[in-house]
C-alpha cells in the first residue's frame, strides 16, 4: 500500500495534515505504514500529478477525498468541509480515518 501526502509549501496546512494522517493510520493499527511526502512546486508538476490543492492524501493513487470533476488543478490550498459544514484547510480527522479504513486492508 502506498500512502501519499501531496502538498504545496505556499499553504501552511500540510504539517497538520501529516499529523492527522499519521494519527489516523495509528488508530487503524497501521502506524508503521510509511507516508510518502510529495512536494508540488510548479505548474508542470501540478499537471503531472493532477494536483487539486494542498494537502491531498492518496492511497495507491486514489484520493481519500475524491474532488469534483470540475475541481481546477493548481498550486492552491484545498478546501475541505467539516461534518458541521464549516470550511477547513485540512480534512476532518474522523472523516480521514473513515476514508482510510475503507481504502486500506
Amino acid at each position, binding site marked *: 500500500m502506498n500512502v501519499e501526502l501531496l502538498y504545496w509549501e*505556499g*499553504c*501552511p*496546512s500540510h504539517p497538520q495534515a501529516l499529523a492527522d494522517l499519521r494519527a489516523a493510520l495509528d488508530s487503524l493499527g497501521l502506524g508503521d505504514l510509511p507516508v510518502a511526502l510529495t512536494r508540488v512546486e510548479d505548474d508542470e508538476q501540478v499537471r503531472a500529478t493532477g494536483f487539486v490543492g494542498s494537502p491531498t492524501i492518496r492511497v495507491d493513487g486514489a484520493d481519500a477525498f475524491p474532488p469534483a470533476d470540475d475541481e*481546477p488543478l*493548481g498550486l*492552491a*490550498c*484545498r*478546501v*475541505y468541509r467539516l461534518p458541521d459544514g*464549516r*470550511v*477547513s*484547510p485540512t480534512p476532518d480527522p474522523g472523516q480521514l480515518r473513515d476514508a482510510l479504513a475503507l481504502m486500506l486492508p
Partner: protein
Amino acid sequence: MTDTVPAFTLPDTDGTPTSLSPESAAATVVVFTCNHCPYALAWHDRLNDVARDYAASGVRLLYVNSNDAERYPRDSLAAMTERVERGEFAAPYLHDQSQAVARRWEARTTPDVFVVGPDGTLAYRGAPDADHGDPALRAQWLRTALDDLLAGRPVTNPRTEPVGCSIKWRP
C-alpha cells in the same frame, strides 16, 4: 511598510471607486482576502460579524482581493460579484486587479488584516484571532485592537503573524 499606510482607490464589484479615506472613519479595517482560500473562508463570517458589530462605532471594513485571477479563476471579478450578490459580504469587496495595493501594503496571505487609525497610521496587522478553526474566538485579536483604538489607548498587541494562503502573485 511604514506606519503610515499607502492610500488607495479600488473598484468594488459594481465598478464603483472606493477609497481608503481613513480620516472618514473612527477606524478602518482592510482585509486582504479571496474566494478560494480555506483560511479566508473559515474566518470570513467572523470578519463580517466585526463589520456589523463595529459599524455603529464608526468602524469601516474593506475587503480586498488581489489574487491573480488568470491562474486562479475562482478569484475572478465575476466570482467576486457572485459572492457579493449572494449576500456573503457585510462590507465592500474591492478588486485589486493590478496587485499594486497588495504590493504597497506588503500583504502576504489571505486573510491579512490591517487596522488603520483616522490619522492614516497602522494600528494593527496580522491574523483575526489565534485559530481559524475556532469560531468562538470571534476575531478577538482584531476586536481588541479596535477596542483599544476606539478608546484612545495604545493597541495592546499591534502585530501578530498573518496566517493563510499566500497571495497569488502574477508570474
